[in-house]
């Protein structure tokens, strides 16, 4: 059985930052493995530990910088990785879910996985749509926001819980091949072991251009672009308490007592 896992970066913005030229300057950004993908990787690796003959392949649409998080995925137990990037993508102000889905699908068509696990969303744009778009692109079945997965590989069915709003879960049976978007909390992602980190260095990481995956740069049809980026004006009128911790805590205690708080 082959499992494809999408791996992307999350972007953390510093407490103090500036927006310029429709982007946040690199120096205010920190990149890490996307939280949701961490759970997707763990889920795939656990399946590989439970049943025989499972290959876990990661796929990333991203520049060379993303190899850092790809190596993290390999260190946690993925077998090999594919990264797709191209100068034509560099120019896009927004990489929309449809485009990402098309590119991942180009890789998936070659790999022919039985199961694709993606994170529910990624950290910068949080579209939350790439996994389901990918399923439609591949003509695979799918389930979004999965927080429990019970795989019957022989029957070719994934029994999942989908986490709906308000503490309700939907129980569904999904026929394979399928794309599942994985929610945080589904498992307990491991830390990479030293041995894992060492092994990751020698695991295959294929880098492909658009041409390599059979996509013509002119056919990208990037339909979304960013026309402005700004710090939102605060809607609320929070009163900020000023001073050192002893002063602010004192003031806050008084406020709380006025509202009836007391042990």
């Amino acid at each position, binding site marked *: 059985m082959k499992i494809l896992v999408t791996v992307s970066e999350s972007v953390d913005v510093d407490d103090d930052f500036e927006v310029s030229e429709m982007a946040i300057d690199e120096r205010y950004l920190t990149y890490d493995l996307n939280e949701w993908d961490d759970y997707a990787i763990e889920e795939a690796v656990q399946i590989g530990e439970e049943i025989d003959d499972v290959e876990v392949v990661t796929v990333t649409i991203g520049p060379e910088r993303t190899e850092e998080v790809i190596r993290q995925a390999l260190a946690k137990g993925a077998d090999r990785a594919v990264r797709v990037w191209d100068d034509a993508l560099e120019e896009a102000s927004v990489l929309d879910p449809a485009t990402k889905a098309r590119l991942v699908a180009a890789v998936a068509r070659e790999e022919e996985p039985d199961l694709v696990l993606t994170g529910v969303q990624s950290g*910068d744009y*949080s*579209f*939350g749509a790439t996994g389901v778009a990918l399923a439609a692109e591949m003509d695979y079945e799918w389930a979004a926001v999965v927080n429990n997965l019970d795989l019957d590989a022989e029957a070719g069915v994934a029994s999942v819980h989908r986490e709906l709003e308000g*503490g309700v879960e*939907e129980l569904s049976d999904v026929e394979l091949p399928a794309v599942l978007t994985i929610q945080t909390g589904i498992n307990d992602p491991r830390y990479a072991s030293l041995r894992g980190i060492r092994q990751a260095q020698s695991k295959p990481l294929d880098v492909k251009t658009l041409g390599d995956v059979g996509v013509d740069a002119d056919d990208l049809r990037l339909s979304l672009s960013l026309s402005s980026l700004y710090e939102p004006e605060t809607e609320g009128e929070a009163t900020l308490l000023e001073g050192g*911790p002893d002063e602010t805590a*004192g003031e806050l205690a008084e406020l709380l007592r006025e509202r009836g*708080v007391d042990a």
Partner: protein
Amino acid sequence: MTVLAVAEHRRGELREESLELLTVGRQLADALDSELHAAVVSGDVDQYAEDLNREGVDAIHTVDHGEEFNHDVYTQTIEQLVGAADATMVLTPNSVNGLDWAPALAQRLDWPLVTDAVDMDVSDGLTVTRELYGGKVEGAVEVDSDHAVLTVRGGEWPAAGGTGSATVEPFEPDIDEAAIGSTVTGFQEVGAGDVDITESDVLVAVGRGIEEEENLDIIEELADAMGATVAASRPIVDNGWLPKDRQVGQSGKNVSPDVYLAIGISGAVQHVAGMNGSETIIAVNDDPSAPIFDVADYGIVDDLFEVVPELTEQFSG
């Protein structure tokens, strides 16, 4: 041309966001010189159609097929309805189910998709406002097409009111049953435990800013001193540091205490959805740009490890 608003329901109830869609849908329809149609698929569609018949809705398409949401049925149905109703825009809530079918529809129609819209404008082509980077910045996304599938954030537009005079038109899609590869087998309520945080007047809620499980001690001590109950954001529960029944937010509990003290919580939309009905919201966070300050009444921009022990002291005297 029409703007098509696809309603959402679950276990016999139309979800409130469906009525908000009608408000933003009407605005779009006016600007585009289009009609506003609503659609409701599965369940007691006649009852839902009655609820959806608000001011400004021109027609309601009812699709009597099955009981509960199934993404294959929704995707197939709406793809056909888009053609039948000459729709150029499809709107649906940015919910877990919305995100389970809208991207598939967009892909099949080959229309652009923009999720989680908080504002939109069509005066010069379609531009959709969204939050980025966990709500720290906002951006306008330009859509290079006359067609789009849009998922709409809840609570950003008021629910449509009044009584409408929409025509109710049953629509019978041609459903390819063989292409339905997922089956809903049931529902399960989660998060019932021994503590009911919705009953507490004062909540001390802790987030990822606490960093380590051991550090939860200072939060427990503060809650004890204040006579409050401890609640949490999702990562604390995902890590297994506190049980699920303490989680506040979209997929946790909806709370409205007299006082909600958020400590080391950024204020992600899914968290805020569960606590913005609180009487007084106070945030302690060392990041002045954290979105939690947008919903807070009072804030302390400082290190929680400095502020929390001081505050505990204030209540232990």
